[in-house]
């Protein structure tokens, strides 16, 4: 093992079908550095075309980057990657908590699960020992009780868990893995993948592997300066310390865009917002709680209707507030808590519920479809009933559990027109009509929507031209509604987010939200002191570009996704923002196509198909990717 510093050095492969394990050195995969990078590389190599997300051949891959388990602030993220159950392409999520650090201290940078156990099982990885435990006694429990039971059975309060609830057991297509009781691995059905393998939980405890630092004195000097001069002065950090994204983005009087009523509207009244500001949730707050290694404590422990839950952020407020028009903090928090305990992705759950309510209110479906339930926006009771039905696949919940793409196929009757589908996944976001780079990043996201790939949070800050020139070498991005230069901003963000995920840094404390935080130069400096290697900022950005090409190729290999899958849903082009500071804004197909041309050109991809070219893949060192595409008869200019 020659990766002596930063990395733990090993990748553990677990075949669940025959319970065999093997180890490979992390070094073999080092061009992709770690975290999501190595995860996606393994996924591309391991999964052959034709495999479905719920097949035993799918892989569930956990990854931690070289900064994880050090004192670098907020660098404790776990990347989880798999073939997506809904899109059939890239499945990818990321959670905080403690798991990534324990995994590295147990000796592993990555753990790869393939196959399927023949009965409900949980896995306990205790340094070099891998235990397969019978989980029949905990099958059916929620994620919180599962975590508790595993800790109790293993007699170790400090172990960290990834668990599924009943949604994952029932293979709900947007079920999420929940890390350490309150950290969800969203998008793509990670929980269903785990459930399909009969794995109720994965626990890890590391007592033996030190994460070594190549240049300890230089590292500490650089880290102390970074903390003092940058991290603790960051405006984003200060805001997130006051209640996470919940405190940052839901403020009355701003008239800013929200995703409202199945994304039909983007204006939410100040009266509505006033009922769900952060202080309304603080009434239920027990205490603030950090992810391991993070000085931001943006999460919290809440008590709601006898349940103790964690971690509500702005996403859940959009999901169970504006998108279903609920204006009671108690109802929003309760829906969030149910999703965490059942192990459901709040974004996709909201999309399914809001779509169903919209169908009901427009007369496409009626009580005959919904098991007698009357569905209406603003009714917390109706939302929680649907969430319960989805998790248990009960009646109409069994239809919604398939995700909106399949559900709208089952229901028919023109119901697809009310959906916002991109690559079969639902878009559940604010500001897609007004903020053009934000929309481009979401719609081209390799995971099938979501703001955690190329969608640049900095577009909301209307940076002056001199700043965008300095930061990105892009001349002007100050007008969110303009299409000009936005493709370049998205391409930069994709590369940068790749770096952040390869390191294991949290997106919330990155340049995604604050231009001062973790610049590529800062990351290279810290990484080099930790690992003793010589990465440059440019080199890291190129690794990010390679990762983007790899994921785009994975989507192409498995699903043939290309240009036609990068077009916005109809509603975003036809229904403009009705009120507020972006009144009248919508997406325009002709200008979108021009922006898309520019986006493909910047990537060096084919403009007609939207596919990565062989030439581009080879230039990035992705020879084997090009070969695998060719072997599967995927060639340019079909």
């Amino acid at each position, binding site marked *: 093992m020659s990766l002596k510093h930063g990395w733990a050095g090993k990748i553990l492969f677990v075949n669940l079908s025959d319970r065999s394990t093997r180890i490979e050195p992390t070094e073999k995969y080092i061009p992709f550095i770690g975290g999501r990078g190595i995860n996606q590389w393994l996924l591309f190599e391991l999964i052959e075309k034709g495999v479905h997300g719920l097949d035993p051949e799918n892989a569930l891959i956990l990854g931690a980057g070289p900064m994880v388990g050090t004192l670098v602030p907020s660098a404790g993220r776990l990347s989880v990657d798999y073939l997506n159950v809904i899109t059939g392409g890239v499945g990818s999520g990321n959670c905080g908590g403690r798991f990534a650090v324990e995994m590295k201290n147990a000796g592993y940078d990555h753990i790869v699960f393939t196959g399927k156990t023949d009965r409900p099982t949980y896995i306990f990885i205790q340094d070099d020992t891998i235990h397969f435990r019978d989980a029949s006694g905990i099958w059916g429990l929620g994620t919180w009780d599962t*975590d508790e039971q595993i800790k109790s059975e293993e007699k170790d309060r400090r172990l960290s868990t990834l668990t599924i609830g009943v949604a994952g057991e029932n293979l709900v297509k947007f079920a999420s893995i929940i890390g350490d009781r309150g950290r969800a691995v969203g998008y793509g059905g990670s929980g269903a993948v785990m459930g399909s393998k009969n794995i109720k939980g994965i626990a890890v405890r590391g007592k033996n592997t030190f994460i070594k630092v190549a240049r300890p004195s230089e590292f500490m000097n650089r880290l102390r300066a970074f903390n003092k001069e940058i991290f603790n002065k960051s405006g984003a950090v200060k805001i997130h310390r006051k209640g996470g994204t919940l405190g940052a983005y839901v403020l009355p009087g701003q008239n800013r865009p929200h995703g409202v009523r199945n994304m039909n509207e983007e204006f939410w009244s100040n009266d509505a917002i006033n009922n769900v500001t952060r202080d309304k949730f603080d009434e239920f707050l027990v*205490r*603030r*709680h950090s992810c391991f290694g993070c000085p931001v404590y943006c999460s919290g422990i809440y008590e709601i209707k006898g349940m103790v839950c964690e971690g509500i952020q702005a996403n859940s407020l959009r999901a169970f507030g504006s998108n279903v028009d609920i204006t009671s903090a108690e109802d929003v928090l309760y829906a969030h808590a149910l999703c965490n305990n059942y192990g459901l992705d709040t974004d996709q759950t909201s999309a399914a519920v809001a779509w169903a309510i919209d169908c009901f209110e427009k007369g496409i479906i009626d009580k005959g479809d919904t098991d007698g339930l009357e569905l209406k926006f603003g009714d917390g009771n109706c939302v929680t009933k649907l969430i319960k039905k989805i998790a248990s696949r009960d009646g109409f919940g069994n239809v919604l559990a398939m995700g909106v793409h399949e559900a709208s196929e089952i229901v028919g009757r023109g119901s697809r027109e009310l959906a916002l589908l991109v690559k079969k996944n639902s878009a559940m976001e604010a500001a897609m009509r007004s903020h053009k780079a934000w929309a481009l990043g979401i719609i081209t996201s390799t995971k099938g929507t979501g703001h955690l790939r190329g969608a640049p949070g900095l577009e909301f800050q209307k940076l002056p031209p001199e700043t965008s020139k300095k930061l990105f070498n892009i001349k002007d991005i100050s007008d969110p509604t303009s299409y000009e230069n936005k493709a370049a901003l998205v391409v930069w963000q994709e590369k940068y987010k790749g770096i952040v995920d390869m390191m294991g840094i949290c997106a919330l404390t990155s340049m995604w939200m604050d231009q001062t935080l973790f610049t590529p130069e800062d990351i290279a400096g810290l990484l080099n002191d930790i690992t003793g290697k010589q990465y440059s900022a440019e080199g890291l950005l190129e690794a990010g570009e390679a990762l983007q090409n790899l994921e785009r190729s994975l989507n192409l290999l498995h699903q043939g996704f290309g240009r036609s899958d990068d077009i916005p849903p109809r509603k975003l082009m036809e229904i403009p923002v009705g009120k507020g500071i972006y009144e009248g804004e919508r997406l325009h197909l002709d200008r979108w196509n021009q922006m898309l041309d520019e986006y493909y050109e910047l990537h060096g991809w084919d403009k007609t198909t939207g596919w990565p070219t062989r030439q581009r893949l080879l230039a990035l060192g992705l020879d084997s990717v090009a070969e695998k595409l060719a072997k599967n008869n995927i060639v340019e200019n079909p």
Partner: protein
Amino acid sequence: MKISFDKNRCTACGLCELACSFHHFKSFLPDKASISVCMDRKGRLEITTLPTCDLCKNEEMPMCVEFCPTGAVKLINKSGEGLKTLRNQLDKWAVK
């Protein structure tokens, strides 16, 4: 002098454990730290220190105190007076 904890301020971030292991070993392994923080599902805390704690001799201040983001870990003297915390002005949202 000794290390003291204000459980109301602690958010269980574990930076004290990481910093402590770095002081002892110039590398990171929270399990080998002289300090241990564990929060249960209801937010109840167990914080313990081991006799191996040497108050970070040769450092300007104990590293657990230096890296604690909320001032929950403090260095106090025999009469219980606080000597050093990283932040005197606490953000009230560090705790309820």
